[in-house]
């Protein structure tokens, strides 16, 4: 029940993974970092892939862009997918720039029927190239739009229903957005179809008092661990990973944090069975 706990592969930990087996069930790689022509990144990727299952996680697809997807990006992503043979391929439910410009950020979409149609069209384009369901992650956000017609979780549900894509729920992002916009994170979790979720992210954030920033440079906080418990109760077991992008600690420290996730999942899911 507690298999399936992963970490994001970071360059700082290459040598740890090459030196000896680590108690990590799988690794998530940032696709964009390996969509390069050659050199050390791809050599390390191949060596580590030989010993660990992997999932691919992208940051630049811009699935909500009105302009549609970048064909060259999809082509390179497909080449990497064939190299890695990942369990699944994910990106974010957001947009990152239009008209050939890149903002290099995960900008939220308005939750409208029009945006749903755009995302549906783009997800279909990606799935056509990848020949597998795309997995989409909810982002942390700091703005909401006047024109939104539904909640974020309703929008996620509609995207799933329209495209057959899967969802990566970032528990920290749910927490951050719920704090910033004043919605119930429990309602969010309960609004997402159980069968749609393929992966959880757990991460830390920065608390600025009147708002939270999704920095991925802190350990997971107690409120997010609590929300993870709720998510486990609702979804059952889902492959889970700790996502740390900045202020990256030693691998043993991250593995200790992953062990907390394992223990919580064990505890919650055993109790759930007992009920």
């Amino acid at each position: 029940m507690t298999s399936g706990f992963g970490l994001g592969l970071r360059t700082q930990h290459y040598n740890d993974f090459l030196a000896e087996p680590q108690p990590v069930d799988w690794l998530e790689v940032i696709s964009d970092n390996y969509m390069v022509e050659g050199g050390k990144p791809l050599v390390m990727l191949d060596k580590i892939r030989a010993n660990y299952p992997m999932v691919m996680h992208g940051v630049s697809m811009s699935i909500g862009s009105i302009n549609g997807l970048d064909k060259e990006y999809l082509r390179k992503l497909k080449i990497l997918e064939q190299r890695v043979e990942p369990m699944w391929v994910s990106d974010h439910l957001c947009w990152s720039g239009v008209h050939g410009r890149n903002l290099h950020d995960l900008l939220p979409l308005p939750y409208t029927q029009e945006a749903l149609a755009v995302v549906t069209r783009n997800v279909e384009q990606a799935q056509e190239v990848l020949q597998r369901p795309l997995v989409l992650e909810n982002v942390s956000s700091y703005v909401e739009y006047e024109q939104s017609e539904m909640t974020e979780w309703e929008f996620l549900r509609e995207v799933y229903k329209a495209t057959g894509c899967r969802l990566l729920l970032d528990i920290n992002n749910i927490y951050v957005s719920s704090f910033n916009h004043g919605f119930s994170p429990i309602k969010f979790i309960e609004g997402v179809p159980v069968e749609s979720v393929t992966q959880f992210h757990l991460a830390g954030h920065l608390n600025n008092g009147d708002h939270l920033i999704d920095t991925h440079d802190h350990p997971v906080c107690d409120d997010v661990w609590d929300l993870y418990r709720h998510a486990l109760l609702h979804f059952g077991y889902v492959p889970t990973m700790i996502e740390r992008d900045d202020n990256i600690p030693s691998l043993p420290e991250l593995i200790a944090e992953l062990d907390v996730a394992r223990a919580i999942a064990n505890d919650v899911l055993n109790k759930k069975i007992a009920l």
Partner: protein
Amino acid sequence: MKLAELQNDFQHALFDTECKGVDWISESARGLSARDRLDIYYNAYRIRLIDVLLDTFAHTAIYLGDDWFNQLAGDYVQTHPSIHKNIGLYGKDFPCFLAEQLPEDKEISELALMDWKLRRAFDGADSAVMIQDDLQQLASEGSSIYLQPVPTLTMCTQHFNTLDIWNAINQGQTPPVVEPLPEPIDILIWRKGYSPHFRSLARIESVAIACVCSGGALEAIGAVLEKDFPDVDVAIEFGVMLHRWLDEEIISI
């Protein structure tokens, strides 16, 4: 408001010279105002791109110091929207930008170009490299030999003691005072194994490598060198160079 208009307006708001309020972001009953919320994205855009420049142009940043570098990087971000999916390519025009901004301090753009080219070599295309046996095999076949540089091989020309400045910074030492060189020198940059490498080139070697890169046969390169360097024993010089190129893994197969 249609999605196309919203995305266009949002992007413009981030590119603007200051963060102005917009009417399509909800005013929330709690926390930050709509403008302050937009400001999070406005600042994050700048910080993220300046960080990328800092990472790519690490030696240039140390040479300039934090304040000056951040000011120049901020000006670059304001005037150069990213056109790359790969954020690592964002600094492509930064060396040129520095040359325009600092016409009196050309060593700075030379330093930046060196940082840029070394970074590009890091994850440039792979290729199998030629070894002595391969060359001997080709020679024994009797036909003309064409050498192909490894895909990461590139050159840059320096008019100042930029290489010494780069090396000093790289070793954590105080860089020497900038000085113009009596003659410009060419710097060869390529990747050997996992690591970007570089070294300065003597004039004759620079000409030889330029010939290799433009696809000349071995005999033709020899002829060019004999014409350009009449005082040099080209047969010996060229043999030494070839040997070194193979050792340094700059010729692909």
